[in-house]
């Protein structure tokens, strides 16, 4: 594991650095084995499992209104499925919904927009059109962007997406 470029631990460390206690999630094949299962087993985190991704957008917003920071983990397919809630709640409603989005099927070290996978290729352009800041996380060094991005989202009351480009182990 020593040479593996992205660890689940580096992402968890960022959640902790950002003061996250609540994790809202629907299992994503990229992050579920090491990251989500690790969070579920960690008493420091309260994981709220949802049945559909748009619920997660709203639960994070309710948590914000109650004074809490949270992150929302999902697969890119779930992001696509919940676009209207992201539009209406997070973007137009100015809620700091911090999305951790697994890019299932993205080729290693290939830019998402260059992916042969259509669903992956369209994610960044959609985020750009919606005016949502995004960060590509493929290595532990990239993961260090997570806590500052979360802090910025809460400061500005705006959503942010961390795109997980390979399975964190």
């Amino acid at each position, binding site marked *: 594991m020593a040479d593996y470029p992205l660890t689940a631990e580096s992402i968890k460390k960022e959640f902790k650095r950002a003061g996250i206690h609540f994790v809202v999630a629907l299992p994503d094949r990229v992050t579920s084995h090491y990251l989500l299962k690790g969070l579920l087993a960690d008493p420091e985190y309260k994981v709220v499992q949802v*049945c559909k991704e748009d619920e997660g957008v*709203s639960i994070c*917003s*309710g948590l914000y*209104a*109650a*004074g809490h920071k949270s992150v929302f983990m999902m697969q890119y397919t779930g992001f696509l499925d919940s676009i209207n809630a992201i539009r209406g709640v997070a973007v137009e*409603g100015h809620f700091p919904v911090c999305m951790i989005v697994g890019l299932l099927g993205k080729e290693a070290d290939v830019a998402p927009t260059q992916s042969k996978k259509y669903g992956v290729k369209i994610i960044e352009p959609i985020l750009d059109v919606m005016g949502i800041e995004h960060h590509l996380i493929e290595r532990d060094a990239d993961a260090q962007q997570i806590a500052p991005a979360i802090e910025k989202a809460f400061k500005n009351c705006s959503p942010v997406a961390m795109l997980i480009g390979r399975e964190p182990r």
Partner: protein
Amino acid sequence: MMKRDEMLKAFARQRKDEIVVAVYMAAQELTHFAPNDLNYTFVGAMGQGSSHALGLALGRPDKKVVVFDGDGSLLMNLGSLVTIANQAPKNYVHCLCENGCYETNGSVLTPRSGQIRFAELAKTTGYKKTYEISDLGDWQQKLPEILKEEGPVFVTLKVEPGEAYPENFPRLYSIEHREKFRQTLAKS
């Protein structure tokens, strides 16, 4: 069948310091005749009221959270019943204003209008207590008990439109009111 505005006014008379999440017509009416800084109407997309309320209930387990959801809205987010029951927040009261139609969008009937036992669905998913109420007197009488019950509680309220009130969508989605809600909640 109750007039929705009379049902909401009866609630407002008994309200103490509960957070109230209301959607669509219930939100318009409640903010009109019972303004309160703990009225939360910033749900942003149809069907999302119950999920916002779950975030609030988990974030503030010391405060009772009462949702006035709609049947058209709940049909768009039925999975939220399972998510809520799974989290089992003791402070969650899910009231469903069942009018059998999409009243805001032209009063077109919902699929299986009036034939779905939503309280039974809630019970099956794991809500701790459920009620079905169609009479205003019954609502007024049972409300203190409902608000004291350990949640999640589900209440089907059979309603029809009462008086017409002006619509004020900018108020429902106002960032200024949302921030005022946050500040009020933080202090309470």
